[in-house]
């Protein structure tokens, strides 16, 4: 463990430059550049907001400015979800994508997942800033509760990192995982109260949502950004403890698998 941290510290320059390079590559030669990182999820929010608030208006809290609140609700859920989805889907292919590098150059393999996390986190930070701007523009209050956001993000990141690491390693040996996970993520999105409010669900579905590890974080975001409430502490605490154990297992598996990764890639 200590060795891993030491290796990461020694390679910090490389990881920072890899994250920068990755961002640069993604938006190179596009006119709007990095703003696509924000525009894309926001466009998605706009689509959901228009489609759903006009179709399902009855199911949402009524009143003056209701559709604006719904937009904020959507954003509050979409921002953490897109962090989760990005970490998982990029982790899936991170070893396969870096096969050439891993086979030719000796560097601590743990750098790869950290670079993936770092890139997603930068993305998330920008999106979060845009979100705050939208909240202010739409006349919703921003309170001290916002200080919970880093805690929520951390809990989500630990879970996403652990899941991503396990899936990324398995995907090297069984490529089907990548295909399956794309479908699973879609399903997962709809099993999470992001575009709808959990209360509107039939009871049996509510139980499913209760076991959804991402739900407490999403709910926490919605609470602190829109509803001016505390995040759901108990479920969040459980998630954090569970995720840390999961991450420990994932790292153990990664250590065992690391020598074989290169042989198979």
């Amino acid at each position, binding site marked *: 463990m200590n060795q891993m941290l030491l290796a990461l510290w*020694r*390679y910090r*320059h*490389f*990881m*920072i*430059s*890899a994250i920068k*390079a990755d961002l*640069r*590559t993604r938006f*190179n030669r596009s006119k709007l550049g990095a703003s696509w990182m924000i525009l894309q999820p926001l466009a998605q929010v706009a689509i959901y907001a228009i489609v759903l608030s006009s179709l399902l208006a009855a199911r949402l809290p009524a009143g003056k400015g209701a559709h604006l609140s719904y937009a904020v609700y959507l954003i509050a859920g979409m921002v953490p979800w897109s962090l989760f989805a990005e970490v998982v889907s990029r982790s899936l292919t991170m070893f396969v994508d870096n096969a*050439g*590098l*891993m*086979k*030719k*150059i*000796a*560097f601590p393999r743990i750098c790869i997942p950290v670079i993936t996390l770092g890139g997603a986190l930068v993305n998330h930070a920008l999106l979060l800033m845009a979100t705050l701007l939208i909240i202010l523009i739409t006349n919703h209050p921003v309170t001290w509760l916002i200080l919970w956001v880093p805690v929520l993000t951390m809990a989500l990141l630990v879970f996403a990192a652990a899941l991503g690491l396990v899936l990324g390693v*398995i995907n090297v*040996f*069984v490529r089907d995982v990548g295909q399956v996970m794309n479908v699973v993520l879609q399903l997962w999105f709809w099993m999470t109260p992001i575009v709808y409010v959990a209360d509107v669900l039939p009871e049996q579905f509510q139980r499913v949502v209760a076991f959804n590890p991402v739900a407490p974080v999403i709910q926490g975001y919605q609470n602190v950004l829109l509803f001016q409430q505390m995040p759901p502490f108990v479920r969040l605490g459980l998630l954090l403890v569970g995720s840390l154990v999961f991450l420990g297992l994932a790292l153990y*598996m990664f250590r*065992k*698998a*690391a*020598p*074989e990764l*290169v*042989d198979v890639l």
Partner: protein
Amino acid sequence: MTREVLRVEKVGKAYRDYSSEWSRFANWFGFKSQSRHEKWVLRDISFSVREGEAIGIVGENGAGKSSLLKIITGTSRASEGAVTYFGRIAAILELGMGFNPDLTGRQNVYHSSGLMGFSRQDVDGVIAAIEDFAEIGPYFDEPVRTYSSGMAMRVAFSVATAFRPEVLIIDEALSVGDTYFQHKSFARIREFQKAGTTLLIVSHDKAAVQALCTRAILLEHGRVIRDGEPEAIMDYYNALIADKENNKIRTEVKADGRTQTISGTGEVQVSSIALYNGAGEPVEFVAVGQPLHLRVKVSAQVAVPHLVLGYMIKDRTGQQVYGTNTFHTKQVVSDIKCGESIEFLVDFPANLGPGHYSISTALVSTDTHLVNNYEWRDLALTFSVTNLDKPGFVGLAWIPPTIKVLRA
């Protein structure tokens, strides 16, 4: 005795196949599963490398050279045994591997140095030197995707050798771009070597191995089969890749301590070989430019359809100076009867620089010893060249010039 910089102990590498991926995963968590195939590509490799040595690792394709290098550089882990180093290892394996095409040359220097574990401050100190060495002018600040492959190679080599490592691993990829840069990179490698860097060179290029190396290790089927002086190892390797069937290899230590390698089927053999001067007297010491006369007598042990004699003059380090054969000179002998004896008379001038030389002979059926190798005899004969009456010069060849000096 110089310091040890690298020790390879009983290293083996197996690629494991599992009956199902599940048993592979179970294996990581300590559940030993029986059903797996192991394919050993390296077994029981041990050697120790000292400061300043230059070691050539040779072997046929699939002998395990790349696997061994990967284990030494640390990209792949040995299945058994251990590799210990005392110092930094740098590898010039696939130049430009860590480059990102959208970053500029300068940014890539920082990026790939980071990949080798260097900090920004470290690179700040050498960036100017790297830019100078690469000599690609204003392109240094352009994205790498606009580079020609030669330019990318130049930057990559400059980065890889910006810091002098204790051990430098060089793969065949050393043919870096244009001739000018090749000379420049070779000069840098020699400079490192002088400063104490140990070189590990993997190459099929006999000349490169003999020019740079002080020792060679020959791998065959994942094992070290020979470890020693490059000339002898390369001769043995040469014999090894000859016609595999009925090929016997014999090595013998000569009186002067050099190892002679004789290989082949023995169907035709050299029975005597001698070198004479213009007056027909046998010579061992020869003057630069003197006419020489090589007489090779061969005898056929069985009847063979075609016979070609090849001979090669090599210098002290085993570098080929000149070689040809009777296939090239269109003097193939046909229908040789069992027990027949044939004499070849070769006249040539000793247009060689001062030094020690050896002659190797080959008895084959076509222009290569890879098809029918009757006999290949290294160090069949040795002689020395001294400069008695020619103006002073250096080098392996005597190329007499006419120099005119014009003054305005």
